[in-house]
């Protein structure tokens, strides 16, 4: 029997997201996709499936979802309080959702974007080669109460992964990019020394960085012919304020870019809550590419461990192997 998730209550911005689209950049539509791409790989590892499958991205808070038909889910990204029918669910883990179960996901405790993955992925319509909503581009929309989502089916539950810390701001590495050289050395040095605070007006398109003191503009209102924007570009607007451009960035821009956040650190910007401190640090292009390649190579190798539950709640303690790492990893799938 195929399962579906019924949205009974949706947080302020719950959208279907995957790894985004390729091929529409030339027509002004940026790749888009999940704000925290690592979270998609974690969800895929927990469910034992492909990272390209679609999940729900929940900005700030989740919602209430009712399962029609049993399915498996995983919860990743910004930790949120989650429970099903009064039972608390571990974050960064996969679980069984019984037919009729009601899953409630509250506000983010740290970070912004939490993810609800389902076994087999969310099977919403493909548009231009992907299922991702692209809100800035006018493609798709945030979910609302009454929406019904088809679930692909399959997957495994009872798995847990350690969560890579990326929810509290911190150090963000940047490579020089197309216009870095037009910024004086002094401006770049001051940019690296400045502690920025993420502005509350951030969205899937970009995040404004606030700081005390002088801005980072270039003398004489530099005129740059419009050129491509890539996710992670740090655009300096006319008043000298940096904006980090994120998943749904515009595809071209005429403001100079002081540098580009490397892909492994972009989720740190996206996930930082308003007011969180961020600091930018230049690395060479070669170093940035090396760090990015290492990060990408590690993602498919994520190895979840069996989720060892509170023994008091286990009905048949002796049937579980409680030493992590020695089981096949699927012995908790048959939860009663």
């Amino acid at each position, binding site marked *: 029997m195929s399962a579906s998730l019924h949205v009974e209550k949706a947080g302020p911005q719950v959208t279907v997201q995957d790894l985004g689209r390729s091929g529409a*950049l030339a027509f002004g*539509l940026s790749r888009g996709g999940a704000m925290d791409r690592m979270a998609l790989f974690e969800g895929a590892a927990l469910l034992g499936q492909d990272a390209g499958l679609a999940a729900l991205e929940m900005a700030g808070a989740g919602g209430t979802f009712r399962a029609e038909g049993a399915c498996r889910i995983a919860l990743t990204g910004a930790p949120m309080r989650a429970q099903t029918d009064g039972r608390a669910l571990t974050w960064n883990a996969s679980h069984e959702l019984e037919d009729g179960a009601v899953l409630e996901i509250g506000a983010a405790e740290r970070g912004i974007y939490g993810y609800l993955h389902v076994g087999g992925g969310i099977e919403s319509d493909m548009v231009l080669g992907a299922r991702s909503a692209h809100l800035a581009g006018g493609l798709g929309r945030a979910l609302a109460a009454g929406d019904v989502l088809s679930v692909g089916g399959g997957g495994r539950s009872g798995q847990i992964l350690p969560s890579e810390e990326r929810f509290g701001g911190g150090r963000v590495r940047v*490579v020089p990019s197309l216009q870095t050289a037009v910024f004086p050395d002094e401006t770049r040095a001051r940019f690296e020394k400045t502690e920025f605070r993420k502005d509350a007006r951030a969205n899937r398109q970009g995040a404004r960085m606030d700081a005390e003191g002088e801005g980072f503009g270039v003398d004489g209102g530099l005129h740059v*012919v419009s050129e491509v924007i890539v996710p992670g570009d740090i655009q300096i607007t006319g008043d000298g304020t940096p904006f980090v451009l994120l998943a749904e960035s515009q595809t071209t821009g005429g403001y100079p870019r002081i540098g580009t956040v490397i*892909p492994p650190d972009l989720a740190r910007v996206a996930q930082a809550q308003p007011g969180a401190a961020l600091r930018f640090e230049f690395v060479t292009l070669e170093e940035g590419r090396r760090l*990015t390649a290492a990060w990408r190579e590690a993602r498919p190798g994520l190895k979840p461990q069996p989720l060892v539950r509170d023994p008091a709640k286990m009905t048949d303690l002796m049937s579980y192997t409680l030493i992590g790492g020695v089981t096949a990893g699927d012995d908790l799938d048959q939860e009663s």
Partner: protein
Amino acid sequence: MTDGFPRIDSAGTDGLLVRFSGALGEPANRAALAYRAALDAEGIEGVAETSTSLVSTFLRLDPGSDPGAVEERARTLLDSRNWTEAPLPAGRRFVRIPTLYGTDRAPQLAAAAEAAGMSAEEAVRQLSQARVRVTTIGFAPGQPYLGTLPEDWDIPRSAELAQVPAAALVVAVRQLVLFANASPTGWRHVGQTGLRLFRPESETPFVLRPGDEVTFPAVDEAEFSRIEGDDDGGADWEDVA
């Protein structure tokens, strides 16, 4: 070419940008379009997708590709001919997009005309007769940049941003932009059209293409109210090349 162009630079960790000029110009725009078409035809391994801006061509690299190897292939192709002599792309159309100039639907016509040093009537005459070309599609889905207008229209962007609706026709720096979505902009809102530029549910989701030639003939309010509810906004097309 002079001034160190064309040149190849990195854009982030995963991109290469081939720039044909440091300023807007017709030959460099044609070069960017033709070079992108040649890149796509060659199908270089490690390139995920390509795009153009006004005077540059972008290559997004596949994760895991070797940037050095891709750059070498891109440079060999770049050096193989003088791209600024390339013809315009094939499959171009001539598109007429009916436009309501001024009124409360496009409130910056008077300010734009003044900046260009002419009366509002003269501004409408010039803008409605100009045959411009789509130089690039970008910023937002399906959104065209069109050029090039006469010298008088080399007016700066306004420092103050104003909110414009979808399908707004705006002008600055000898170019027109037709907005795909509602957006804040420093460009002056001189006309309103009814053309829906991005249709994700359609087989042709993006209505305009680089190289298309476009005019924005003036219509009155009565005619505009008749056509604006339609996705095409009364626009018509014919093939030119």
